[in-house]
């Protein structure tokens, strides 16, 4: 028996947002009389962190602490229209809509504060800790709570805002494919180390080294969640998963999690992640969206690593022990390349 180690590399980019645009997102923001804010969305949080990232974006734009903002989603009676959580559009589209709504609410809040402080709203700034004060004169200050109470009960102002983000639809040329698919791309590079058992064809991923460029990481821990979980899914796509083990035949299709297999907690490889941030010109605070692309580089990296280890190329996913063993037999045994 021999275990062969190999390393494989892949690099990818990923279009952020619904291809060709035409996918609006709307947001509503309003303050309670005590200066706490509610963001009403119809966007969906399926684990990616929509509620959390829009909450931070709203707090940043309003100039209040994140604890003073709650994101309510998704109720079609209260949350305005949104296309949905797919195509890496959530953070990019909804984030921008929330900024627009929060800006409007903030300006009313500053107007109310200005009237109380008898100053020009243009001279006011927020400290992000619940206070509004005159630029350069922190002593001339009012709390967001007092401003909100004044707006509601004295001045009769609604501290609220509406936001929408839409990248209008692009045309596609039937003859050349000319189009404007998206406005920004995320990036990734991945180097995977595998061990291949040349008697059984079993492939073990032993290490992952990655770099992901995600625009601004609006919340680094949410980004890490996506990248770590997504890379695990990429590893799973590469060597474990399929609904059709004998594609294109439909025989032996999995019907449970014992036959539809994914890496277990005992199959994990250490994953060393580096995050680069090149802000997107039209992303919310430069954010892009790491959720979808994070799995993509792992698939080819694993296939390339298997080639590096034993010299066989598995061009049909998933890389099952059987495919590797058959290829090894056809090749007359392992022929390590070790190019990386």
């Amino acid at each position: 028996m021999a275990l062969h180690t190999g390393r494989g590399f892949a690099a990818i980019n990923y279009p952020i947002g619904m291809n060709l645009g035409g996918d609006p997102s709307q947001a509503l923001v309003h303050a309670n009389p005590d200066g706490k804010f509610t963001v009403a969305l119809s966007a969906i949080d399926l684990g990616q962190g929509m509620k959390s990232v829009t909450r931070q974006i709203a707090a940043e734009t309003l100039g209040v602490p994140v604890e003073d903002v709650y994101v309510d989603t998704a109720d079609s009676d209260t949350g305005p229209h949104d296309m949905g959580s797919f195509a890496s559009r959530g953070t990019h589209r909804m984030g921008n809509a929330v900024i627009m709504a929060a800006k409007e609410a903030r300006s009313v809040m500053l107007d109310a504060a200005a009237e109380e402080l008898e100053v020009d709203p243009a001279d006011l700034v927020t400290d992000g800790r619940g206070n509004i004060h005159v630029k350069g004169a922190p002593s001339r200050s009012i709390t967001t709570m007092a401003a909100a109470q004044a707006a509601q009960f004295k001045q009769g102002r609604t501290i609220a805002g509406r936001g929408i983000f839409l990248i209008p639809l692009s045309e596609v040329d039937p003859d050349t494919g000319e189009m404007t698919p998206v406005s920004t791309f995320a990036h990734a590079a991945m180097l995977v180390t595998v061990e291949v058992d040349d008697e059984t064809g079993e492939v073990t991923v032993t290490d992952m080294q990655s770099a992901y460029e995600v625009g601004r990481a609006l919340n680094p821990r949410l980004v890490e969640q996506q990248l770590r979980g997504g890379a695990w899914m990429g590893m799973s796509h590469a060597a474990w998963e399929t609904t059709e083990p004998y594609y294109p035949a439909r025989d032996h299709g999995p019907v449970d999690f014992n036959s539809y297999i994914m890496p277990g907690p005992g199959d994990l490889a250490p994953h060393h992640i580096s995050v680069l941030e090149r802000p997107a010109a039209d992303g919310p605070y430069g954010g892009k969206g790491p959720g979808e692309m994070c799995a993509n580089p792992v698939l080819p990296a694993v296939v390339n690593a298997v080639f590096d280890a034993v010299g066989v190329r598995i061009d049909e996913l998933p890389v099952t022990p059987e495919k590797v063993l058959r290829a090894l037999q056809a090749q007359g045994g392992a022929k390590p390349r070790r190019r990386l």
Partner: protein
Amino acid sequence: MKTPVTLTLNGAERAAFADPGQNLLEFLRRGVGDLSPKYGCGQGTCGACTVRMNGQTVLSCLVLAEMAQGATIETAAGLATPAMHPLQTAFMDHFAAQCGYCTPGMLVSAKALLDRNATPTRDEVIEAISGNLCRCTGYEPIIAAILSVAQGRIRA
């Protein structure tokens, strides 16, 4: 014909009628209203419905509700008292949940581990959660969260 079933759920006595062939998962959810155990497969392959029955972790979708008569059941809903259990705090601090659907079952398995082994190794943690599938996190943050409690490294 419906069958009356009385059990102790997270310390309180609860009773309801079980449909013929109804499993404990559906009984807990629709019968007595504890929605923390989740349906993920009804086949015993995902662990989302994990609860403790008389101290042992079981897959509630594979327990006939009638057989829980008189049993003591613990679910994730009973973890907070109301202060968060250290495991819950650790899951929050380690970002050990994304969609949150596997989390209640995962916490029940983790609690069962720490109750019998206060200082598990990484491999013991992996073994303890091997019956609970997570599709979001890649498991690593969950393992880290459980280990952090075991090693008393909970960030408040």
